[in-house]
C-alpha cells in the first residue's frame, strides 16, 4: 500500500511555497517516512529549522515545530534537547543556513555530540533569496552574485562534520530517496549528533543559470554521478574519479552530551 503522508501533514498549510521541480519536497517525504519507520511518537518529536526554502519544511508537518532565525536551527535545537532530553529533536537546514551564517553552530554541535539529527538540504545555493552562491556552490559555478564563476571553494559537508567530531555522518541524494530515508532513520536511532548531507536541487535559481537541464535532469544527474562508498572500494579508480561518494561515512559510539551533563549533575549532587 502506498505510504499515507496525510497523517503527517498539516492540511491547512498546503499548498507549499516550493517551486515546481524543487527537490526539497522529496527530502521532506524521506524525513516523514524515516520518522514513521523509526516509530517516533508525534507529540514527542520536535522539528526545528532556520530560515530559507528548506526551512519552510517544518511548517507543513504535523509535529512540534519551531521555525527560528536564519542559521540558528542547531542552537535552538540544543536548547530544546537540554530542556527535555527525552524529546526526539530533528533539525533541518539549507546549506546556507547550516554552513554560512550557521557554520559556527554546525561545527560546535558536531563537537558537542548532542543527540540531535540534522538534515542538510544541500542544493548548492541560497534558493530563497535569489540564487546567491553558498558555501557549497562548487568552484567555478554560476550564481547571481558570481556571473563569471564562483571563485570560492565549497565545503564538503561530510568531511566538515567528520572533522568537527559528529558521531554519525552520511550522504544521500534526492534521487536516492529510499537510501536517504534509511540514513535519516539510522541517524535518528543513533545516540549522538547525526549529520545527513541530503543532496538536492534548486532548478529555479541554480539549475537554470548553470544550464543543468530540467528539474528531472538534475535529479537524474545524481544517479549518474554518485557512487556508494562500499561499491567505490571495489571499483577501478577511473569509475570513481570525479564521482560524489554517498553512504554512511561514520557511525561511532561516543559519549552523548545530555548523558555527560547528567553525570556531572549526579556527581555534584544537583537536581536535573
Amino acid at each position, binding site marked *: 500500500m502506498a505510504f499515507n503522508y496525510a497523517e503527517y501533514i498539516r492540511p491547512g498549510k498546503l499548498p507549499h511555497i516550493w517551486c515546481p521541480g524543487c527537490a526539497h519536497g522529496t527530502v521532506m517525504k524521506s524525513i516523514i517516512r524515516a520518522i514513521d519507520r523509526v516509530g517516533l511518537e508525534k507529540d514527542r518529536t520536535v522539528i526545528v529549522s532556520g530560515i530559507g526554502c528548506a526551512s519552510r519544511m517544518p511548517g507543513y508537518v504535523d509535529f512540534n515545530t519551531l521555525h527560528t*532565525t536564519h*542559521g540558528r536551527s542547531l542552537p535552538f535545537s540544543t536548547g530544546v534537547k537540554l530542556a527535555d532530553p527525552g524529546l526526539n529533536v530533528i533539525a533541518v537546514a539549507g546549506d546556507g543556513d547550516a554552513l554560512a551564517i550557521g557554520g559556527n553552530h554546525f561545527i560546535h554541535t558536531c563537537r558537542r555530540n548532542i543527540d540531535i539529527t540534522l538534515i542538510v538540504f544541500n542544493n548548492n545555493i541560497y534558493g530563497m*533569496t*535569489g540564487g546567491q552562491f553558498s558555501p557549497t556552490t562548487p568552484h567555478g559555478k554560476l550564481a*547571481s552574485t558570481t556571473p563569471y564563476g564562483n571563485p570560492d571553494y565549497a565545503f564538503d559537508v561530510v568531511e566538515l562534520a567528520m572533522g568537527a567530531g559528529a558521531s554519525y555522518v552520511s550522504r544521500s541524494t534526492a534521487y536516492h530517496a529510499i537510501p536517504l530515508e534509511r540514513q535519516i532513520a539510522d541517524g535518528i536511532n543513533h545516540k549522538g549528533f547525526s549529520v545527513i548531507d541530503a543532496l538536492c536541487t534548486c532548478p529555479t535559481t541554480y539549475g537554470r543559470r548553470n544550464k543543468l537541464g530540467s528539474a528531472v535532469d538534475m535529479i537524474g544527474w545524481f544517479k549518474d554521478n554518485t557512487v556508494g562508498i562500499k561499491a567505490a572500494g571495489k571499483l577501478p579508480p577511473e569509475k570513481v574519479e570525479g564521482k560524489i561518494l554517498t553512504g554512511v561515512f561514520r557511525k561511532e559510539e561516543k559519549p552523548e552530551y545530555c548523558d555527560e551533563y547528567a553525570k556531572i549533575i549526579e556527581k555534584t549532587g544537583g537536581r536535573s
Partner: protein
Amino acid sequence: MAKEMFLAGCSSAAYGAMLSRVEVISSYPIRPYTGIMMELSKLVANGELDAEFVHGEGEHAQVSIAYGASAAGARAYTGSSGVGVTYAMECYSPAAGGRLPCQMAIADRALDPPGDFGSEHTDVMSARDQGWIMGWAADPQEVLDNTIMYFKIGEDARVLLPQFCCQDGYFVSHIPGKVSIPDQKAVDEYLPPFNNPHPLDPTKPVSHGPQIFPDQGPAIDLQRAQAFIDTPKVIEEAVADFNKQFGRNYDPFLEEYMTDDAEFVFFLQGGHARTARFAVNHLREKGVKAGMVRLRFMRPFPTEAVAESLSKFKAVGTIETSTSYGGAMKGGNLIHEVRSALYDVPNPPPVTSFMAGLGGEVVSLEEFYSMAKVLTQAAKDGKVDQYVYWVNFDKV
C-alpha cells in the same frame, strides 16, 4: 551630462555607491536589500565599477568586513534589511567609536516574528543610538543623492562617523521612478577620495579598538557625542554644496509640504511622504488645512529645526512606522524626539502619535483622513486625548 534612468531604490542606491567610487563592498542576501547587492555585483562583474566585492557568511561578518576595509582606508559600502540589520548589531558601536565612516544601505523590513517581509522602520531604528548618522529617503532619486551626500558628511574630518542610508523596503526600494544620474566628473568634484586620518598602515602602525581603562571611557564617549553636535553644520554645508552642484533643492533636515498656512501637520520619515502629499492635497480640497513635515535626518536629530518648524502649527501627529514597546508614549519612537524638541518652546502644539505603516502595511489615504480628524480636533481643543492611536484598531 547627467542622464535619466528609470530605477527603483535598490538600483538607485547601487548607482549612488558606484558614483561615490566605493572601493570595498560586502554583502549578504536578505530581501529587500538583496536588490542593492545584486545590482552592485553586476556592476563590478561587468567592469563598470572597480571595487572589491566580498560576500560575507552573515551580516555580522559583512559589517565587520566593512569595518576592516574602512580602517585600512578604503571607502566601504555594505547594507541589509530587517533581521540582518539587527543580527549585525554588535558591530555598530565599534564602527562609530572607531570613527570609521563606512556606509550601510538599509532597505528596511519588519523584524520577526512572525516573518514578515514588508517595510517597517523598527529594524534600523533599533540601532539609532549606536553613533551612526541616519535618515530616510522618500524616493529613488533621494536614495541616490543621499548615498553620495552621506559619504561627504560622514567622511568630513569634523565628523568621521558611519552612516545608515535608509529607504523604505518595497515602497521605495522596489518601485521604480525617474532618477537623474549625475555625471561622474561632477560627483568627483563634489566627493573627494576618502582620506582616513588614521589608516592601518604597516609602515606607520596604529591601533584601532584597543582595550581601555574605565576612566578613559567617558572622554571617548564625549568625543563621539561632540561629533554629532558638530555634524548638523556639516550637513548644512554638504546639502547646500550638493544642491548647487547638481541643481537639487533639498532642505538639509526637513521637507515641508503645504505648511505655510497649515493648522496641523503629519510628521514622518521616508516614502509614506508620497501618500501624505496626496492626502494633504485631497484634504485641502475639502477645506482642511493639513500639511506635512518630513524628517530627513533621524541622527543627528535636528532639534532646533524641528522646534522652529513644528511650533508654527496648532497640532502635530507623528506617523511612527516603528515600535517602541513600553516606551514613554506607549507606541513609537518619533513622538519622543518631537516632544523633547518642543519642550522648551513657549506654548508648544499638542503632539500625538499614530501607529501606522507597520509590517509592510501601506498607510492609505483613508488612514490619513482618519488621522486628520484626530488632529483637527486636537487643533481645536489645544490638547490631545491620547499619546498614541493604533490606526484601524483604536477609535481613529
